[in-house]
């Protein structure tokens, strides 16, 4: 609710960075994300070897020649991880977009409209929320004849929209009776115009964080599917690397380099996405931001720990 003084226009003020970018968590997350997107684009070109190519260096630990070591067939793990980035990012993106579009359609419609249809949509999203998604995805993908990236992304997208829909519905319900929406309705705006131009802009942050959350889920699901051997073993992604590591007893042979890089890549990507999500959360709800300087001296010389959100109560024996 900061009231910006209008006099600022008189003296040229140095333009501040947009607040979202100024948040260190969001910046770190975005930078990491950018790195992974870059790798997804150029990964297959800069990979030093063909990921499926066999060589005579069997099960070598990391060295200058093979940065992440080699597999039981002498394949270069660094190239596999690099080439696999594209599939991971692609599936995450497609599934995220599909699920977000569905979530917006179902969530906003069921939140804004009333009646049996809206109740039905809400019940539908609750059903999808409660049914365990991963086993469902596993049984669907393992019965499909084709398990390429796009198919898997679509299956994940169509089964994981429910969380976003629920959050959006709750938010829409709280917006639909606000004064500005009532005013728009009173001036005779059509329902679709109200939804698109009055309500949707206020849902941007919720939609964005839902999208990021779905991408995390989609990435982990895709890797899991590859790890248990459901998806196409021909293409490379981080899960395929882990699948081969597990099935070739990498653990028993002490070949830690086989599964550590792929797992770290997953964890880093997941962390990057969660950081972006925290950035969005803190942008929307400033209370969640970490505290700054918290010890303050009062007039009579005592120190009080100030905490955002708390109203300090100063008594005789204030702690």
């Amino acid at each position, binding site marked *: 609710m900061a009231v910006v003084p209008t006099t600022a226009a008189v003296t040229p003020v140095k333009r501040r960075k947009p607040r979202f970018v100024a948040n260190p968590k969001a910046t770190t997350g975005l930078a990491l994300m950018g790195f992974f997107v870059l790798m997804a684009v150029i990964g297959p070109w800069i990979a030093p070897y063909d990921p499926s190519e066999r060589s005579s260096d069997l099960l070598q630990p990391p060295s200058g020649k093979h940065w992440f070591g080699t597999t039981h067939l002498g394949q270069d793990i660094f190239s596999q991880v690099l080439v696999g980035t594209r599939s991971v990012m692609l599936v995450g993106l497609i599934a995220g977009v599909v699920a977000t579009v569905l979530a917006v359609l179902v969530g906003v419609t069921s939140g804004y409209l009333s009646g049996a249809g809206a109740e039905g949509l809400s019940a539908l999203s609750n059903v999808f929320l409660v049914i365990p*998604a991963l*086993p469902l995805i596993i049984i*669907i993908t393992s019965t499909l004849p084709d398990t390429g990236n796009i198919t898997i992304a679509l299956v994940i997208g169509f089964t994981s929209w429910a969380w976003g829909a629920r959050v959006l519905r709750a938010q829409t319900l709280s917006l639909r009776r606000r004064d500005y929406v009532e005013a728009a309705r009173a001036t005779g705006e059509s329902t679709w115009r109200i939804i698109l131009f009055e309500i949707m802009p206020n849902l941007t942050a919720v939609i964005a964080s839902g999208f990021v959350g779905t991408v995390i889920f989609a990435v982990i699901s895709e890797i899991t599917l590859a790890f248990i051997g459901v998806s196409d073993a021909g293409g490379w992604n981080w899960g395929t690397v882990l699948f081969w590591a597990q099935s070739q007893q990498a653990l028993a042979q002490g070949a830690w380099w086989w599964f550590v890089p792929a*797992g770290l890549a997953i964890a880093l*990507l997941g962390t990057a996405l*969660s950081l972006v999500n925290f950035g969005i959360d803190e942008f929307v709800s400033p209370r*969640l931001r970490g505290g*700054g300087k918290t010890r303050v001296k009062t007039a009579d010389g005592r120190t009080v720990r100030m905490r955002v959100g708390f109203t300090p109560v100063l008594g005789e024996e204030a702690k």
Partner: protein
Amino acid sequence: MSYLLKRIAFYLFTAWAAITINFFVPRLIPGDPVQALITKSRGQMTTEAVQSLYVLFGLDKDESVIEQYFRYWGQLLRGDLGLSFTFFPSPVADVIGDGLPWTVGLVGITTVVGFLIGTAAGTVVGWRRGSWADLLIPVTTFVSSIPYFWLGLIAITLLTGRGSFFPASGAYDTGLVPGWDWEFIGSTLRYGLLPAATILISSMSGWILSMRNMMVTVASEDYVTVAHAKGLSERRVMVGYAARNALLPNVSGFALSLGFIVGGTLLVEIVFSYPGLGLQLFQAVGAKDYPLMQGIFLIITLSVLLANFLADVAYLVLDPRTRREG
């Protein structure tokens, strides 16, 4: 009470939806999986078993979809889930019966304990915002982004091996006969420790974060300030006033994310070769054992629904507002 009745109706509806999905999914399979199995079993299958599989897969062309659907329900109600391909000729129901206790023991206990510890830690972290406790947040973010199964792999590499206290796979010492004697229970605990720790560490961090955020939000409510002003001890305000209210969304969040957690924990079983439903699902996927996959999906879904219902009851106990009549 009407709240509870509404929830029960919802769960029954969801169970129906899950069973219906389970009915339609196998109809997507191209070709004739049953024929493949009959060939594989070299005439060891009885005609009845073959017929039951045809009903499950909807390959009985003489019937309409509606008739097939009712026959499918009839079969389910009799507990007939078909024959497993991998564990041929055991019925799927028996195979699942073997795996279920292990999964309920491992996943059930760790999920609940993880929620309790995570919520307690989140309460403290949220209350002491701006102190050292904030350092926990980046750590938990990182840990919660790691897939469960990968953490399991790392735990196996680092902690197991020759002469280690922790076994790398299995659920009990294979030299022992399962039974209720101390030796067997001790062995079960020893084998379960590492998978349980893996699940605990990854599932806890999510609860820490959500509880922390709720605590931060609740801490600025007027009733917390009033409690401070009354001179109540810090601890009492934290637990009795702030945490009690912050807990509610976390409990409903727990109910909603159960399906997600259970999916992740099943993979830990695969990594540790723990003989529960997760490992069976893995074997079923490898062998294209559709009846077993379907059966496991059904059982997991029904268990998650039951757990959800229990979480609802807990919510009812915790929040007096939902108990208000009218």
